[in-house]
């Protein structure tokens, strides 16, 4: 009984120590930049350092299980207060490479209560960003945001973080853990706006529209965030709409597409949404108008999806020559790697409608020929992420694309870090290497997770197209051997549009010009006889 009581007491003691270590006293040591948790229990002496370098926790946040083994903490070093001034001089003299190791040394050897501690972290972050180590910089900025030791630095750090969100960034660390979890009461208006927007997005993602609306309602009217929030809300509602597409949503998207506060990309997305909604409602002319309103920068090749969707719309309108022209565009080098199984199906349909059955059959076969390996992989139930075409398609869109781009940027920055091995010194370099290794491991995990889902979507798309193509092959096969009655006349119901006086025609000779991509027109006489004409 005595032994049991002693055991219970030791358990309770251990639990209370853990609880203390987890939450209670403010850490005098900076939190770990990767996980955001206190690196080690608070030291006794204020100047002492526990060597946060060795304490990167492998848990939570962005860390993974593949953490390096923690090395013993080096002995605390006495820091000359002038080191901070020297570092600032270096930074403002345009020498971030020299400033960074000094600032690192400073932050590692002074307590977080030091008046310059947060500033040192901030300028360390700025120096790292200037050295193109954006993620490392973001880690320090996120640390400032979590620790909140100095309100003046906090605002600046948040501004810097907001700027970093325009580039590939750690969405969990910045969007969710910093902006998504900020206490919004103390923030200046512009940062609060962005934080409200991010918190609204997080709520939308988890399906809590009411909370998202509360956040979005606090955005200043007329600001860029308000417009982006409207767009996010509309997209979410659209995803939730089951059968009946609300028509007023088209007008709302149309309004957003003209909103100058949105980026051109976002406006184009809104206009594409208008086009898609109109297409779904069989308003093909309206859809075509919307596609024409998508504005691309001069000589920008544009997006393959835009051309393919426009081609389908034109096909539905009977403009098969223009539709085929757009399919020519999709053969351009800029889109050669695009995963567009529908393209071959549409091509086959157009040839079929013009009664050119052999080319129709060839186009249909082209799909199964080109994607034979991917189709085999699906049939054999192989790991689809290993199929290069499906992998490329899956990682080219949405959140999987963002995860891939972030992973690539981490790898690039990791290589970049190697250049500073000598300048940073063993301790800082080792620390940065571990930060990047951990972040990379987590980024790989997230990427793989998203990839698994999106590769399945692409495989479904491929299978559906392959099925359609098989039907088409059968139909065309029947047509090929159809007997032509005596006296049947050719009819040309699908007339080509004549050239207008203000137009100029450049014959296409396998040379793609970006300014021509949207203007190709195919010319082919219909060979349909009376009975079979469309």
């Amino acid at each position, binding site marked *: 009984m005595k032994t049991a009581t002693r055991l219970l007491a030791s358990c309770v003691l251990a639990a209370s120590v853990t609880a203390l270590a987890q939450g209670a006293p403010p850490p005098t040591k900076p939190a770990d930049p990767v996980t955001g948790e206190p690196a080690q229990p608070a030291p006794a002496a204020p100047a002492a350092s526990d060597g946060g370098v060795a304490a990167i926790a492998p848990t939570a946040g962005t860390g993974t299980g593949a953490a390096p083994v923690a090395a013993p903490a080096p002995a605390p070093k006495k820091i000359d207060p002038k080191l901070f001034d020297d570092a600032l001089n270096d930074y403002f003299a345009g020498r971030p490479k020299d400033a960074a190791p000094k600032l690192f040394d400073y932050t590692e050897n002074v307590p977080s209560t030091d008046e310059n501690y947060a500033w040192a972290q901030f300028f360390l972050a700025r120096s790292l960003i200037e050295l193109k180590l954006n993620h490392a910089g973001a880690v320090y900025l996120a640390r400032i945001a979590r620790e909140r030791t100095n309100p003046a630095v906090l605002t600046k750090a948040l501004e810097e973080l907001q700027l970093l969100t325009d580039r590939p960034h750690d969405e969990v660390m910045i969007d969710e853990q910093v902006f998504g979890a900020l206490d919004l009461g103390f923030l200046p208006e512009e940062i609060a706006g962005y934080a409200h927007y991010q918190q609204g997005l997080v709520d939308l993602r988890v399906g809590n529209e009411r909370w998202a609306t509360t956040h979005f309602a606090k955005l200043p009217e007329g600001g860029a965030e308000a417009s982006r929030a409207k767009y996010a809300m509309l997209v979410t509602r659209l995803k939730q709409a089951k059968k009946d597409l609300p028509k007023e949503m088209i007008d709302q998207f149309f309004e957003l597409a003209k909103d100058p506060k949105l980026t051109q990309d976002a406006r184009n997305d809104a206009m594409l949404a208008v086009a898609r909604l109109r297409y779904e409602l069989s308003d093909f002319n309206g859809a075509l108008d919307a596609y024409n309103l998508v504005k691309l920068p001069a000589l920008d090749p544009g997006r393959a999806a835009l051309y393919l969707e426009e081609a389908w719309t034109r096909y539905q309108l009977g403009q098969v020559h223009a539709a085929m022209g757009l399919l020519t565009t999709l053969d351009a080098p800029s889109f050669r790697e695009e995963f567009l199984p529908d393209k071959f199906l549409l091509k086959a349909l157009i040839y079929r409608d013009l009664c050119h059955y052999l080319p129709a059959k060839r186009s249909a076969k082209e799909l199964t020929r080109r994607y034979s390996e991917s189709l085999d992989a699906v049939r054999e139930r192989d790991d689809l992420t290993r199929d290069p075409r499906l992998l490329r398609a899956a990682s080219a869109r949405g959140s999987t694309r963002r995860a891939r781009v972030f992973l690539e940027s981490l790898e690039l920055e990791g290589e970049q870090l190697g250049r500073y091995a000598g300048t940073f010194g063993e301790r800082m370099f080792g620390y940065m290497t571990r930060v990047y290794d951990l972040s990379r491991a987590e980024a790989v995990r997230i990427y793989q997770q998203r990839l698994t889902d999106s590769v399945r979507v692409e495989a479904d798309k491929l299978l559906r197209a392959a099925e359609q193509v098989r039907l088409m092959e059968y139909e065309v096969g029947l047509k090929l051997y159809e007997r032509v009655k005596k006296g049947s006349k050719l009819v040309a119901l699908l007339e080509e549009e004549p050239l207008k006086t203000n137009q100029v025609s450049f014959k296409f000779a396998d040379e793609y010009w970006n300014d021509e991509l949207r203007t190709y*027109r195919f010319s082919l006489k219909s060979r349909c006889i009376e009975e079979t004409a469309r």
Partner: protein
Amino acid sequence: MRRLSLVLSLLVASAALAQVQELENPGVTSAIQDRPYRLLHELDIWVGVLPLDAFYVGVYAQLSYSYHFSDRFAWQVGRGAYGLAARTQLRGELERTFGVQPTANDEVQFFVGSDVMWKPLYGKLAVLNRAVIHGEVHLLGGATLFRFTNSGFRPGINIGGGGRIFVNKYVSFRFDMTHNIVLPTGGGTTSFGNVMTVNLGLALNFGGTE
């Protein structure tokens, strides 16, 4: 006979090959674009040289107005130029060494004229794969009335050609070269004359695509 049959079989084979190609990839694709730059009224400011005479090089400034009927045809309604002569080394040598009178050479003082313009070529150029510029090539034919320093007014007929590069809807640059055959009338001259003009102009366009 054998040679004939060989040629025939080759012809048949190539025709069959062309048919196969047509069957596999039927149709023609073209890029149909709206002309980004169309002209109606055009006012030009020119600088030019008369490079042909061995005794002087005429440098002149010219103003002209053109009306464009379509993308293919235009009328350069009027042009007028006034020139200054820069004497060549040869002429200086003749005057110094052989005592030739400075008044012995006939120089173009000014000229006016009108031309029709045919613009058969229109195209675009890729500039270092970063930009596209549009331009056209035209042929000119017209008449010019010259005022010479010695022989006075003499008419001429001219043919030539040139090119245009569009900068934007309002501005384009033109480069023209014309050869004028000056008729042997007026001033007591009995022989044909030749005057070549080479000029570079800034064209201001109104009423077209802008």
